[in-house]
């Protein structure tokens, strides 16, 4: 089963990355893994080799940090994996656009809504916002905001 395969590969590559199981299925995946900022390319290469596809890249804005959430999936039942990555407000994560071509647009979207720059992605133009937009709408210091928390408030 692809899910067991990729679990073995990732545990081998990232021995001290916390892997949390999800019995309830709330997060849509059986387990999720948290990698360091520099580890996303290794993880993406492992998923690419195993034949997974990149479902979505999104980001969460907390007071103390950003968190990037990658969802990978395979064409078998219940094969979704969540890869989480903490990224400081001024840090620059690496792009995976040469591993997954679909990541070019996904990273452009994260960049324009959060201001996170991806090193290695040559195309950082605005995707959904007007070309001359200089604001990042989904930041919690823009527009109407109902709450701005630190990460531990939600995830403990």
């Amino acid at each position, binding site marked *: 089963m692809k899910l067991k395969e990729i679990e073995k590969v990732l545990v081998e590559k990232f021995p001290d990355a916390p892997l949390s199981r999800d019995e309830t299925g709330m*997060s849509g995946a059986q387990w999720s893994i948290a990698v360091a900022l520099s580890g996303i390319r290794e993880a993406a290469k492992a998923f690419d080799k195993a034949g997974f596809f990149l479902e979505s890249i999104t980001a969460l804005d907390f007071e103390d940090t950003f968190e990037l959430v990658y969802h990978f999936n395979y064409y078998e039942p219940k094969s979704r994996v969540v890869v989480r990555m903490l990224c400081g407000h001024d840090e620059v994560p690496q792009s995976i656009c040469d591993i997954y071509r*679909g990541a070019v647009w996904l990273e452009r979207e994260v960049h324009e809504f959060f201001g996170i720059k991806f090193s290695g992605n040559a195309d950082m133009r605005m995707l959904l916002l007007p070309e001359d937009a200089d604001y990042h709408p989904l930041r919690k210091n823009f527009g109407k905001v109902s709450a701005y928390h630190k990460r531990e408030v939600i995830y403990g």
Partner: protein
Amino acid sequence: MAEQDITQETSRVYSLNLGPQHPSTHGVLRILLDLDGEYIVKADPVIGYGHRGHEKMGENRPYKQFLPNSSRMDYLSGMIFNHGFVLAVEKLVGIEVPERAKYIRVIASELNRISSHLLWFGTYVMDLGGFTPFLYAFDDREQILDILDSVSGSRLTYSYCRFGGVCRDVDSRFIDMTRAFLKRMETRWADYDNLVTKNIIFIHRTRDVGIIDRELCRQYGVTGPNLRACGVSFDVRRSEPYEVYDRLDFEVPTGSKGDALDRYDVRFKEMQQSCRIIDQALDQLPGGAFVAEKVPQKLKPPKGDVYTAFESARGLSAYYMVSDGSPGPYRCHIRVPSFGNLNALNDVLPGTMVADAISILGSIDVVIPEIDR
């Protein structure tokens, strides 16, 4: 001599703007084409002309107030997106849905899927130049809209699915109208076959046009009928069954090559399978409550995330919501299938002719406001 060189250089590649206002761009899409004569050298889709800020709106309001937004993203599968949102919140809060409500929601979603595919069918053939199937398809679609209108009050953008069930029960009139519709469609498939599927011009314009193979699908995250057309049998209703799909017997049609004709075939067969699902669901429809008994007015969800995937008419869609314990989400992200489907055009369009580009764009069935959110 220098002048000759300049004109030869500059006349090689010509930039053409396709859209954002164009009769066949399914919403407001703009593609910057670099053309060499009639052939496309580079295609760069520019989107964002329908960006309305759904994700920011989701963060600023309680879950119940996001219900109208859920239908208006992909307005052709509005009921399915509405259904998916309600499933996500129910999973987060832990609301049990009665059996009757599950069946009603499945029937409504499948009717919506048929109406979305019918509209795609009508407009696709119209893009290729055949105006008549558009009128036939819309006629059938009006029957579905009448059925859904009678029970939900709205023709296009529904807020019919609510937390815990649906907002109104279906009566015998709904069931009679649905059964009459299913009976009517049995003869219509043959009509559409004769009008379109066996039409030699249609076949020439769609066979071997816009081949999206399995590797390209995987690179761009293409899902839905576009993925199934290249032979991968991946449907969220089978891989992560929700509601009562595991009790219903239906096939997941696949193609082989991944060209536009295969995509057309897959969607056509999907409509017939949806009719089969509705038939079985109507047979199995139990009595009982149509909404859960105790649904709190002000939801107090636990902290954490929830990710619910469902199969919309265009592919795998999902709601990813992060809750901080308050009555509204902290982050509300929607994964839309048309994002990846359109993204794949970056690699599919170069090398094709402009007329084929229209055929390819129509066959992948994108809805731009869904991408723009």
